[in-house]
C-alpha cells in the first residue's frame, strides 16, 4: 500500500531513522516511530533506551541530528515547544511541569487564556472551562488553589486537562501513571480511550506491561537508542516484548558471585519523614547486596539520602555495626564507614571542572594532608592506585572529569568512595546512562566488593540489574517497603507487581 502526503492514511506522526547525540553520548542512533489516528501506541524500552529523548524531539525541545520527522505527511522542523504545540502536539512529561505560585486554572490556560475586550483575561470563563475539564476527567480539584503542594497524581491530572484543552491531535504521555493509584489510572485510561475514539493519536510510554496490554493497540520496542520492532498488541506477548527490550540473556549479564554472608552491618529501623517515606526498616549483612527496587519517585533515593544524613528524617534510627549514625551528619556517617554513591553523578558525585585525581581523593583529603597542607604527589599517588584498580580510562590524572564518558565518570565516583574504605556502600543507580561494557565492569566490581565482605545497598530502576545482582530485593512503593523478596523467588513479575500494587503484603 502506498501512502502519499495528506491522504487519510498518512500517519498522524512519523519519525524515521532519527539520531541525536549530546557531545560524545549517543542518545538515539536510529529511532523510528509511526503514530496513527484513532490509535494508542505504546513505546517501551529499558531505562536509557532513548524514549524520553524521542518525546523531547517530538515536543520541539530537542532538535534531531539526522532523520525525518513528518506530521500529517508534511516534514516539520520544530525549534521550540511553542511550534510543536501550535502544530497540535501535546506532551505530558514524566515530571509535571507546573508553575507552583499560580492557580490550577492559570496553569491549565497559561499563554492562551480566553480574553474579553482589550485583551482582558476572562477569569470567569477560564474557571468554568477548568471545572468542565475536571468534570470530564471525573476529578474534583479546587481550580483556585495554587499548584504548590498538590500530589503528583493531581498535578498529572492538571497536565492532562491542559493537553485536552489544547485540543491536540497528537498526545504524548511519558509515564503518566508512574505515580498514580489504581483508581486514578482507570480514570486516566477512560479519558485516553475517549480521546482515541475522537480520532486522536496517542503515544503512551510505560514500564507497566499490564497497562500497555490493557490500553494500547500497537507497541514499538526500543533498545539502546535504536528502533527494534513494532507489532500489534494482539500478536505479541509480554515475554516477547521483554526479550526484544533486553536483547540479551538477563542472567549472564549481571553475575553476582556467591559470597559469605556475615553479620548484619547496617540496621535501619522505623525511618519516617512525613510525606516522603514511612516506617522503613531493614538490615544489610556483610557480603550481601540488597536492592531497593521500585518505580522512579517511590522514595528510594530519599531513603538512601536520609540514611547517609544528607536529608532529614523525623523518627527512626540508623546504625552501623551497632553504633548509632547521627541524623543529618554525613561526616559522622563517613567516619562510621558509610559511603553513598549518588544518583546524579554529574551534579552530586563529581566536581566536573576538577581533575580525575582531585575528584578521586575528594573524600579522603584529610588523611592525605601533611601539616594541614595537601600536596599533589600524595593526591596523585592515592588517585593513581584507585584509578588503576577501577580501570578508569583517561589520558592522565589531571584530565577534567567532565570530559570523560559516563562510565568512566561513574568509576571515578566509585573510586572516591571506595578510597574511604567503607563498611557499607550505598549505590544509587550505579549504571544509569553508561555503556553496556562498563556496566558489566561495575557489576563485577560490586560483586567483588561484596565478596570481600562489604555490605552493599543498591538502588536500581533496571529490573535485570536488580534480579541479577541482589541477594535480596526490597520493593519500595510510595515511601514504604511493600515486599521483601529473596534472590531465589525474585522475578521481574514479582518485583514489578509489588512496585505497582497496593494490596501486596510483605
Amino acid at each position, binding site marked *: 500500500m502506498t501512502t502519499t502526503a495528506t491522504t487519510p492514511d498518512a500517519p498522524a506522526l512519523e519519525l524515521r531513522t532519527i539520531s541525536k547525540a549530546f557531545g560524545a553520548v549517543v542518545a538515539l542512533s536510529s529511532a523510528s516511530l509511526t503514530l496513527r489516528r484513532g490509535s494508542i501506541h505504546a513505546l517501551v524500552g529499558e531505562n536509557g533506551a532513548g524514549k524520553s529523548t524521542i518525546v523531547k524531539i517530538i515536543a520541539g525541545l530537542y532538535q534531531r541530528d539526522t532523520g525525518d520527522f513528518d506530521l500529517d505527511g508534511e516534514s516539520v522542523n520544530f525549534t521550540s515547544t511553542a511550534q510543536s504545540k501550535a502544530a497540535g502536539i501535546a506532551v505530558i512529561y514524566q515530571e509535571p*511541569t507546573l*508553575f507552583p*505560585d499560580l492557580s490550577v486554572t492559570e496553569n491549565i490556560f*497559561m499563554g492562551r487564556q480566553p480574553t474579553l475586550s482589550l485583551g482582558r483575561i476572562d477569569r470567569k470563563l477560564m474557571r468554568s472551562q477548568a471545572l468542565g475539564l475536571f468534570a470530564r476527567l471525573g476529578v474534583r480539584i479546587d481550580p483556585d*488553589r495554587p499548584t504548590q503542594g498538590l500530589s503528583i497524581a493531581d498535578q498529572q491530572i492538571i497536565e492532562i486537562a491542559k493537553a485536552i484543552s489544547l485540543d491536540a491531535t497528537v498526545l504524548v504521555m511519558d509515564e503518566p501513571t508512574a505515580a498514580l493509584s489504581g483508581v486514578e489510572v482507570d480514570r486516566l485510561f477512560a479519558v485516553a480511550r475517549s480521546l482515541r475514539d475522537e480520532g486522536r493519536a496517542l503515544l503512551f510510554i510505560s514500564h507497566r506491561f499490564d497497562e500497555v496490554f490493557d490500553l494500547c493497540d500497537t507497541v514499538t520496542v526500543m533498545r539502546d537508542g535504536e528502533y527494534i520492532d513494532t507489532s500489534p498488541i494482539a500478536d505479541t506477548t509480554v515475554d516477547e516484548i521483554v526479550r526484544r527490550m533486553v536483547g540479551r540473556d538477563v542472567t549472564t549479564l549481571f553475575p553476582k558471585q556467591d559470597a559469605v554472608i556475615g553479620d548484619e552491618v547496617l540496621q535501619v529501623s522505623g525511618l519516617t519523614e512525613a510525606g516522603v517515606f514511612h516506617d522503613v526498616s531493614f538490615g544489610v549483612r556483610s557480603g550481601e547486596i540488597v536492592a531497593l527496587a521500585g518505580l522512579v519517585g517511590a522514595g528510594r533515593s530519599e531513603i538512601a539520602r536520609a540514611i547517609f544524613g544528607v536529608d532529614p528524617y523525623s523518627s527512626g534510627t540508623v546504625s552501623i555495626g551497632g553504633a548509632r549514625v547521627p541524623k543529618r551528619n554525613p561526616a559522622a556517617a563517613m567516619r562510621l564507614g558509610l559511603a553513598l554513591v549518588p544518583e546524579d553523578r554529574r551534579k552530586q558525585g563529581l566536581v566536573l571542572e576538577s581533575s580525575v585525581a582531585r575528584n578521586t581523593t575528594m573524600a579522603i583529603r584529610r588523611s592525605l594532608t601533611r601539616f594541614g597542607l595537601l600536596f599533589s604527589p600524595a593526591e596523585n599517588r592515592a588517585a593513581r592506585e584507585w584509578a588503576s584498580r577501577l580501570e578508569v580510562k583517561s589520558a592522565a590524572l589531571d584530565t577534567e572529569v567532565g570530559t570523560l564518558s559516563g562510565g568512566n565518570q561513574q568509576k571515578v565516583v566509585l573510586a572516591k568512595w571506595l578510597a574511604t574504605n567503607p563498611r557499607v556502600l550505598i549505590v544509587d543507580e550505579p549504571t544509569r546512562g553508561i555503556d553496556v561494557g562498563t556496566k558489566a565492569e561495575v557489576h563485577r566490581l560490586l560483586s567483588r566488593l561484596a565478596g570481600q565482605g562489604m555490605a552493599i545497598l543498591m538502588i536500581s530502576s533496571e529490573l535485570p540489574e536488580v534480579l541479577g545482582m541482589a541477594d535480596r530485593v526490597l520493593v519500595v512503593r510510595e515511601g514504604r517497603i511493600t515486599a521483601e523478596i529473596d534472590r531465589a523467588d525474585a522475578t521481574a513479575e514479582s518485583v514489578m507487581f509489588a512496585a505497582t500494587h497496593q494490596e501486596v503484603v510483605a
Partner: protein
Amino acid sequence: MSAVATETTGSRVTSALGSFVKARETGILLALVLIVVVTTAKNPNFLFSNDGFRDLLLTPSILLLVAVGQAIVIITRNVDLSVGSTLGLTAYLTGRLFIDVPGIPIIVVFVAGVVFGGFLGLINGALVAFARVPALVITLGTLYAYRGINVLWTGSDRINASDMPKPFLALGTQSILFIPVLTIIAVVVLIAAGWYMRNQRGGRELYAIGSDPDAANLYGLNVTRRVLVAFVVCGALAGLAGVLYAARYGTVNSQAGSGFELEAVGAAVIGGVAIFGGSGTVWGAAIGAYLLFTINRALPILGVQDFWQRAVVGVLIIGAIVLDRLLAQRQSRKLVEARDPE
C-alpha cells in the same frame, strides 16, 4: 486520596492563602497608616499642615515609579540594579534638552526621557536574555557603566532650576485638588501596571516565568521576549522618574538618583514581591515605597537618632524576607501534611 478530601482541603488552603495574600499587602498598608497616625499624634504638622500632607504624598512618588518597574522585573526572577543610574542619566538629559533646544515642548521631553530610559532597559534586557548571564551581574555592570557615562557627560556641570521652564518645574510641586501632580502621574502608572499584571496574558506570563522558568519554556511561552519587555518597561519607568526628578528637585548633577536601585528593590521586597519571582504585586511594591520614605521622615519626628534610621529600614527589609520565608515554609509543610496519609 479521595477526590472529596482533595476538594475540601484544597479550598480551605486556598481561602487561607487568599486571605494571606491580602494580609500581606493590607499588612504593610496598616503599618503605613500606623506610622502616619503615631507620628501625627506626636506632631500634628506631619499630616495636617499643608506642606505635611503634600510631602507625604509627593516625596515617595518618584520611588513608586521605579519600584513598580523593579517589581515587574523581580516577578520574572530577575533584578535591575541599574535603575538609579538610568534615572540619573534621564534627569540630566531632561535638563540638557531644555538648555540645548530652547522652547522644546514639555511633552517631547517626557517622551524623550521615557524612550531613553526604555533604551537603557533594552540594553539590560538584551544582555540578560541573550548572553544568559544572571541579571544581578549584568545590571551591576550597567549600574556602573551608565553612571560612568553620566559623569563623563555631566562632568562638574549641574542643571539648575533656572535652566528649566517654569511650567515644567511647576509639575514637580503643583497640586490638583490637594493631590500633587507627581502623585497623580505615579498612581496612573501604578493602576495601569497593576491592571496589566493581573488581567493581561503578558502579565500572567511574567508571573509564570518567574515561578518556574524551565516550565515556562516547556509551555512554549516566549520567555526571552517577555523578559526583554519587562526590562524595557522597568527602564522606561526609571526614565519617566528621571524626568520627574528634574521637575521636582530643579537641580541635577552627575550623582542624581544614586542609591535608588536599592530603595526600589527594598520597596518591592517590603511590599511582598518574592525575590525569587512568581509572586507579589506592583501594588505591594508601591505601598512599600511609601512605607520606606514615610518611615524615613517619621523617625526624626519620633525622636529616633539619625544613625538608627537606616538600621530601621534594614530591619524592615530583613523582617519582610524572614516573614515571607517562614510563612512559605509553614504553608508548604501544611500542604504536604494535608495530602499525607498519616
